């Protein structure tokens, strides 16, 4: 990493730490959701952006993570912080297992299979025989965690910092993973899978593992969202969530770590802005924003930022 990037990162972190003290609690809550989405999008980007496997059903892993957290707290009385790694582990296994049969599918066929997972999930969560744990249509209400160790933070601020810490850990791990041997192998499979195998990359293992890791990220995000919203219900995890995640990584920038953050800001705030512009047709406005972004920044916000920085470097 260059010195300048390091400086930018430090600045970003400083801003992130100050924000909850200067904005309202409601805005702090929204920023917490941005962090949650950023983790989810990072997961989807590992799979779709880096490894080239399209998923139209990541909302299912988001739901699975959220329900894991909620059920562990509700049924087993687990502390909220412990449910995050547990949800990650469950989704890692679930994603890997889903990835194995998905190996036989490519492109649009994989998109369809993941779509099927995405549409089935809310109904599965309403399933009568699981209602004992899932709470059926009603869902599960979770208590709001307070700041520990007598920290001078209100609950919203504490949730924000808790989510920020998890997000940072997840981003650092992803950055490590993607800049090294594994990241190169994932991109190699996406770019030219035959040559990748001829170079000794076991693409079946890598693709299933990418599915697992991707699902783990999205599951962790789901758990964080359950904790932040203090409520899970089947209808908050419709297929729309999966589609919006895909929108997020494309608008933010495919195969880019920072793109996950840009995408998260987009999917959190643009619907609000659209709603303010037109109460009657907010999704039409959202659509216009989406087309505008993709048209003006065909490689996502991350790609455009990179180009801009490169240009500035050339003409000081």
């Amino acid at each position: 990493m260059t010195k300048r990037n390091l400086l930018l990162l430090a600045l970003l972190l400083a801003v992130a730490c100050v924000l909850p003290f200067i904005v309202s609690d409601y805005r702090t809550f929204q920023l917490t959701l941005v962090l949650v989405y950023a983790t989810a999008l990072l997961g989807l980007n590992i799979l779709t952006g880096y490894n080239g496997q399209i998923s139209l059903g990541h909302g299912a892993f988001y739901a699975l993570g959220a329900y894991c957290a909620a059920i562990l707290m509700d049924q087993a009385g687990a502390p909220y912080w412990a449910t995050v790694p547990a949800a990650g582990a469950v989704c890692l296994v679930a994603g890997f297992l889903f990835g194995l049969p998905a190996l036989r599918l490519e492109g649009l066929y994989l998109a369809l299979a993941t779509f099927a997972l995405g549409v089935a999930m809310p109904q599965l969560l309403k399933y009568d025989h699981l209602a004992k744990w899932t709470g059926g249509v009603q869902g599960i209400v979770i208590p709001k965690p307070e700041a520990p160790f007598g920290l001078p933070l209100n609950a919203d601020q504490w949730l924000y910092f808790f989510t920020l810490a998890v997000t940072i850990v997840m981003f650092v791990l992803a950055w490590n993973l993607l800049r090294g041997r594994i990241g190169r192998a994932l991109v190699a499979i996406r770019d030219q899978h035959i040559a990748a195998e001829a170079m000794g990359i076991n693409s079946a293992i890598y693709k299933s593992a990418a599915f697992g890791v991707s699902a783990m990220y999205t599951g962790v995000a789901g758990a964080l969202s359950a904790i932040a919203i203090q409520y899970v219900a089947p209808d908050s995890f419709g297929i729309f969530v999966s589609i919006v995640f895909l929108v997020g990584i494309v608008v933010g920038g495919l195969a880019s770590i920072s793109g996950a953050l840009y995408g998260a800001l987009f999917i959190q705030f643009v619907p609000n802005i659209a709603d303010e512009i037109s109460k009657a047709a907010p999704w039409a406005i959202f659509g216009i924003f989406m087309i505008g972004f993709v048209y003006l920044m065909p490689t996502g916000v991350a790609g455009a930022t990179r180009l801009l920085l490169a240009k500035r470097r050339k003409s000081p």
Partner: protein
Amino acid sequence: MIEAAASQPLLRVQDVAVHFGGIVALDGVSFDVAPGQIVGLIGPNGAGKTTLFNCVSRLYECDRGEIDFDGRALLSVPRHRVAALGIGRTFQNLALFRTMSVLDNVMVGHHCRTRGGFFANALRLPHAVKSDRAAAEQARSLLALLELEAVAGTRVSELPFGTQKRVELARALAAEPKLLLLDEPASGLNHEEVGKLGELIRQVRERLRLTVLLVEHHMNLVMSISDWVVALNFGRRIAQGAPAEVREHPELVRAYLGTA
């Protein structure tokens, strides 16, 4: 003893046959490649040369026959293990990782020589870091050898064809192969570049103690650098021998006149 070991072929192709629907691409081809040699594999378009390469890299399944490499039956080895056994290759129509930089492409070539999975890399455990550094160092030395240092950070898709071909060669060498399969490395190169390529192939053979199996249409190039030449036509071996002999072989002359 040493004599016997030295005369054992590094690659032994025996009675290999492949068909695609009604097309017989290989029809019982046999030949040996002795260690340390440059063996030219020639024949008109459609003769089955690339198909044979794809059998050796395990990209295609053979209908029958056997392929032994370094005393090991190759046809029971999964394709992602072939590189680690010591077989590297380039592709006739280029198969680079187009969004990646030159350096990253070459580093992927070294994949089979490094360890470290998802966990070790995510946590940047010492052995993963060390192995990544070694891969980068090795790649840089290959870039130097192939005069690619200036474009190390460039995306391969932005480079001219001839340069991309050298990147593919560097990527193949990064796997530290014993046997290097080159599929038409001179195609698309100009006259001067072809001359340099011949020199380069000979040079890497010496320096890295390689055995080379070379598919090429540039007769001058093949005949000048090969120790042995195998000629195919319609999936069959029609001649083999020292370059001077094969060049004059009536079957070969007929094959080329027939398709020219």
